């Protein structure tokens, strides 16, 4: 039911963990099923140099989190904000239709992490 890439990122997830000195943290959840993603980012000169995640959810939720943290590394904040749910799903070789909305929270969690970073900068 899942693509090879989804299974790869699910069984060997990249960038799992918390970040003690994170510059921004975003948490996104799906209230219906409880899927929850936490993404932490490290920013240097307007560029995301590191990203980590922790996720409660199904196989695709974990694969999406892993993929987003991979995609975002080295990108400027503007480029990172432009990453769409569809782009994440495409990079994974597609997601089953029923999983497209419920498990595809990575891009939203990332946006929240960037917003968190920006609000911290204003202080």
């Amino acid at each position, binding site marked *: 039911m*899942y693509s090879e890439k989804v*299974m790869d990122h*699910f*069984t060997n*997830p990249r960038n*799992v963990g*918390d970040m003690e000195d994170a510059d921004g943290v975003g*948490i996104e959840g799906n209230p*219906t*099923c*409880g*899927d*929850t*993603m*936490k993404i932490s980012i490290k920013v240097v000169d307007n560029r995301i140099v590191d990203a980590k995640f*922790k*996720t*409660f*959810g*199904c*196989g695709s*939720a*974990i694969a999406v989190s892993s993929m987003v943290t991979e995609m975002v590394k080295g990108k400027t904040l503007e480029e990172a904000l432009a990453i769409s749910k569809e782009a994440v799903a495409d990079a994974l070789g597609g997601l089953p239709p*029923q999983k497209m909305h*419920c*498990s595809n929270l990575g891009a939203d969690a990332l946006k929240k992490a960037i917003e968190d970073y920006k609000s911290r900068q204003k202080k």
Partner: protein
Amino acid sequence: MKKYYFDHVATNPLHPDVLEAMMPYFKEEFGNPLSIYEYGSKAKNAIEEAREKVAALINSKPAEIIFTANGAEANNFALRGIALAKQNEGKHIIVSRMEHHSILNSARFLEKSGFVVTYLPVDKKGFVSPDAVRKAITKETVLISVTHGSSEVGTIEPLKEIVKVAKEKKIIVHTDAVATTGNIPVDVKDLGVDLLSIAAHQFYGPKGAGALYVKQGMRIVPLIYGGIQESGRRAGTENVPAIVGMGKAAEMAKAELQMRMDYLKPLRDRIINTLTEEKNVFLTGDRENRLPGHVSFCVEFIEGEAMLLLLAAKGIFSASGSACSSKALKASPVLLAMGVPAGLAQGSIVFSLGMGNTSEDIDYLLKEFPAVISRLREISPFAQGWGDKDGGESCTVKK
């Protein structure tokens, strides 16, 4: 890679002896049981022999067995057939929240057709209380349907007590015994039920064969109209090989029932005893009144589908009632009815054992499953800092 099948509530493999009994009816004995020449009479006799064997398994008369295509059809037939037959006496039926979709969705269909349905609450172990049944009965009640045992949490219901309550008011009782028949003793006279659903593939028979026991003298409206098969109560050319297979499987289940239970229970209890030692792993359902090969847990902080996938990668096949593992993306209504919090229900996992499982299979499961739990908890944002609680008997008693 070796395969470890722990999903016997989904279906069982066909017993080789059952297949052997079926084979002639795929080949040389292909006749239509209604035909008056030799081919027909041989097929007809084979069906009647199977009927006797299925009847013997549940202690009914052969004439009280109506063959169906599966358990779901038997359940639909029971609810709709009795509701329609009795609608002039009342339009209220009672079902429990432990029921299979084929009961619940039949009940919903009847609601749309003008019936009133009461959905009985259950306690944290999944028991339907006879007292709740008594309170739900009205002057309009024509049918009560409560499952004999739950394939999701393994709980075996106090059916005799429920029937006793129903019979005080002379109300018809149906039970979905798909998960229990062939796995624990099922005796329609002892239980006192009027209708009972069975599926052959739950006791090493073929898919495509089920039956509804209908007590002698009970009027039931058919689901399928047509010819005179099954005494006019279920039309259509019979699935002769599957029915023959169901008969053979029933005969074997009756002969081996005690041996099967004695084999499965220790395997089951070993898994339960070992895994409830894990932190934040909670048994669902009752420990004592439980299907012999049934193990079910809620594992906190992680999700069922993710567990199923990692287990499958190790050759272990099991089931979950989590929302994410269901096609409809809805958590198991049974777990929610038992009061399991939605987040914890996401951690549902079910291992159902069968006669093909060995003690070595259990060793392997007990080695691999805790590793899967740890691996997913490392990824989970909840596993950290929530404070460990001891595992235990029921996931609804904590907090």
